[in-house]
């Protein structure tokens, strides 16, 4: 079996090539750092097995962020395997820097030059490039499959004969003699070249020396610069010999004049998001959803119930099917079109290259609250699914920003929470529900921003945030890819509903229909298990206006998956839509809301309390137990306090009248702001740390 590792700069199309070679369907996007962990797959070419490993993007063999560390460590530990280095043809100059690093390591490199950009910025003489670098070079295009067979042939027939020494290494005056006998032993055991270690010494790459237990020696001050200059000098020579003059700058487009305009950038972004949300939740998505609900009920739900009634008349099984499966699952399944559309819009955003621009535009403001422009990606993905979004926080440069970004992601209202707003809000507010839903999404963002500000000022101050982000060119999405994204998300949703949601519904149904003595409650009377448990907790939630056991136990069930909140409420109320509305207003029912304000409070609580268990597990893995627990506690507190405040304000507004209420709120806000202003005044300004010689206070 041939083992080969796929490496390259961020966003050069590694995963696209990986998918193309292996037939996998890994997530890709036009953004820096979509792949955050290694992925492997074996494929066959001409009866040979090839094991390909896709690594996160790196700039050199020295890692600066967590996702880079994964790639670098893996490469160093597997330095005897083949390396498939992918470069972007339009940005070859910068991409070759990594190639040189790999060659210094003595890696067996095959260079694949990605020509995915339709308009070439410059012409490249590939055979010349191959000759100058001493490695095979294959131009490819993963979209049209051009050059893929040639690349596979090159991998299968790889021979080291072509390799030669890099000319610029002579000028670096590498000192191999510093290494002790013990070091030499380690270097040999790990299959490194002495020269490579000498270069790494000049680069002051302490991490590598620690990883392999080598002794680190001091080197001259400007050695880092010398190495970088030598490499770029060589690259300039190579580029001069094998490429034509560049015609355009990579990444900057004429659209950017408008999209990045100081004053237009924000309205344009908000406009895009608003349009996507409107299409998803209120127009196209809602129509499709209504249609689907109708079809499901007519052709699957009703016949199924009728069938079971015929076979087991009067049995509790009929109730299980009718309430838990048809009613409960049906209430979720209807949201399929909306979830699929939402993910489609997120992928369009991700693929277009616009996200890097958004990151640039928002970096300013986000840096004020301790986040960086790069957080935008993670937070936007949070509107889809927090669990997968949290993983992308890895491409933050410093640890505290990473923790903050990951902790705030659950406040972005994920796609699983939308059904709750739609069903409960829809029952009480009808057409005005659009405002409630928009308000909830907005509230999530505002709470996240405020919380980030507080964390930045207290426990999680960001250290050494840099925000260095490349601009990719814009891409449009092919029709094939749109269909693929839609199908992929439909499949994921159906699997989720078919496994997790169905089993949760059955569990909730059993708990809410059987008592602790295992009696079927609707026949025998008494309290079900869930009712007894829920009633212990209800007093806590009474101040928020929703003190009935059904609502509280729905919140508990929602810990597994947020959709279960809706299906549970649907089950408790008798499972049909007309029942739902009357049940919500009936003081004797299990899902009684004392007023429409209580519904708002409930929705706010659902928005802000714990993320689902899957997210908590990922958070625990990514940011550690301590911060996950703290994050969950904060979430619970924030949810309770916000729900209480909003409920109280609404009630007060009803009693006092809107005008007086506004006055009171205005005074409170004024006091808060003056308080913050005074604290800021006392703290004063600091000088910038680079100009130590100047006395002026920089802004």
């Amino acid at each position, binding site marked *: 079996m041939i083992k080969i590792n796929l490496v390259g700069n961020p966003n050069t199309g590694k995963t696209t090539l990986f998918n193309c070679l292996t037939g996998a369907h890994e997530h890709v996007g036009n953004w820096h750092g979509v792949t955050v962990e290694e992925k492997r797959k074996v494929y066959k070419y001409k009866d040979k097995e090839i094991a390909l490993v896709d690594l996160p993007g790196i*700039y050199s063999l020295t890692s*600066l962020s967590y996702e880079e560390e994964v790639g670098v460590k893996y490469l160093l530990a597997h330095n005897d395997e083949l390396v498939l280095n992918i470069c972007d043809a339009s940005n070859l100059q910068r991409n070759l820097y990594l190639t040189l690093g790999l060659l210094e390591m003595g890696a067996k490199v095959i260079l694949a030059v990605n020509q995915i950009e339709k308009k070439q910025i410059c012409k490249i003489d590939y055979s010349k490039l191959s000759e100058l670098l001493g490695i095979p070079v294959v131009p490819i295009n993963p979209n049209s499959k051009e050059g893929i067979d040639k690349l596979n042939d090159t991998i299968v027939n790889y021979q080291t004969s072509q390799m030669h020494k890099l000319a610029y290494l002579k000028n670096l005056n590498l000192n191999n003699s510093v290494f002790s006998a013990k070091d030499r032993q380690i270097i040999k055991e790990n299959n490194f070249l002495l020269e490579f270690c000498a270069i790494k010494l000049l680069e002051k790459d302490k991490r590598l020396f620690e990883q392999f237990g080598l002794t680190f020696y001091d080197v001259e001050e400007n050695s880092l610069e010398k190495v970088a200059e030598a490499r770029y000098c060589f690259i300039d020579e190579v580029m001069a010999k094998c490429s034509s003059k560049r015609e355009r700058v990579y990444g900057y487009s004429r659209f950017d004049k408008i999209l990045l305009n100081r004053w237009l950038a924000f309205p344009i972004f908000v406009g895009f998001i608003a349009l996507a949300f409107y299409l998803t939740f209120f127009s196209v998505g809602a129509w499709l959803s209504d249609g689907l609900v109708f079809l499901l009920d007519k052709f699957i739900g009703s016949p199924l119930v009728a069938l079971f009634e015929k076979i087991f008349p009067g049995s509790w099984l009929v109730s299980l099917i009718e309430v838990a499966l048809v009613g409960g699952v049906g209430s979720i399944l209807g949201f399929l079109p909306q979830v699929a559309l939402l993910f489609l819009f997120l992928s369009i955003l991700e693929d277009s290259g616009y996200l890097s621009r958004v990151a640039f535009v928002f970096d300013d403001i986000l840096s004020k609250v301790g986040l960086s422009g790069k957080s935008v990606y993670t937070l936007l993905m949070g509107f889809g699914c927090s669990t997968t979004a949290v993983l992308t926080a890895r491409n933050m440069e410093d640890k505290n920003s990473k923790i903050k970004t990951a902790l705030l992601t659950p406040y972005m209202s994920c796609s699983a929470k939308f059904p709750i707003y739609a069903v409960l809000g829809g029952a009480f507010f009808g057409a005005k529900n659009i405002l409630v839903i928009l308000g909830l999404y907005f509230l999530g963002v505002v709470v996240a921003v405020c919380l980030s500000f507080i964390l930045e000022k207290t426990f999680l101050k960001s250290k050494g945030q840099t925000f260095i982000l490349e601009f990719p060119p814009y891409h449009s999405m092919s029709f094939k890819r749109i269909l693929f994204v839609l199908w992929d998300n439909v499949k994921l949703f159906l699997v989720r509903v078919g496994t997790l949601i169905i089993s949760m519904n059955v569990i909730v149904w059993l708990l809410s229909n059987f008592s602790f003595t295992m009696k079927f409650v609707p026949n025998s009377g008494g309290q079900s298990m869930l009712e007894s448990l829920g009633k212990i907790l209800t007093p806590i939630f009474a101040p928020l206006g929703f003190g009935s056991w059904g609502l509280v136990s729905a919140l508990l069930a929602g810990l597994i998956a947020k959709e279960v909140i809706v299906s549970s409420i649907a089950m408790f109320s008798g499972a049909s839509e007309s029942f739902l509305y009357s049940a919500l207003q009936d003081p004797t029912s299990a899902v009684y809301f004392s007023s429409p304000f209580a519904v708002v409070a409930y929705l706010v609580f659902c928005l802000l309390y714990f993320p689902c268990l899957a997210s908590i597990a990922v958070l625990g893995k990514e940011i550690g137990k301590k911060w996950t627990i703290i994050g969950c506690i904060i979430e619970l507190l924030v949810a309770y306090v916000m729900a209480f405040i909003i409920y109280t304000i609404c009630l007060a507004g009803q009693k006092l009248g809107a005008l007086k209420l506004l006055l009171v709120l205005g005074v409170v806000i004024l006091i808060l702001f003056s308080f913050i202003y005074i604290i800021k005044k006392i703290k004063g300004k600091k000088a910038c740390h*680079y100009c130590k010689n100047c006395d002026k206070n920089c802004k």
Partner: protein
Amino acid sequence: MLNLKNAKIGKIYNIKSLSEYASEKIVRRLFELGFTKGQSIKVVRKSLLGQTILIEIRGYTLSLRTTVAEAVLLGEKL
């Protein structure tokens, strides 16, 4: 001293050196990205509050915080 933070938009400069006060991490990344001595560089635009800038270097586009840009010392291009 003239640095990338206070460079004029649209004008081409030469990189003179990287500040000795900048952290090793930033210097390392800047070298990797091609900020070598004598390289020409241009600021394309600034963000709303001016804390983030967009530059062109070695034929590609890159955005940076001004905290990083401060570390890049420039000379006038003749």
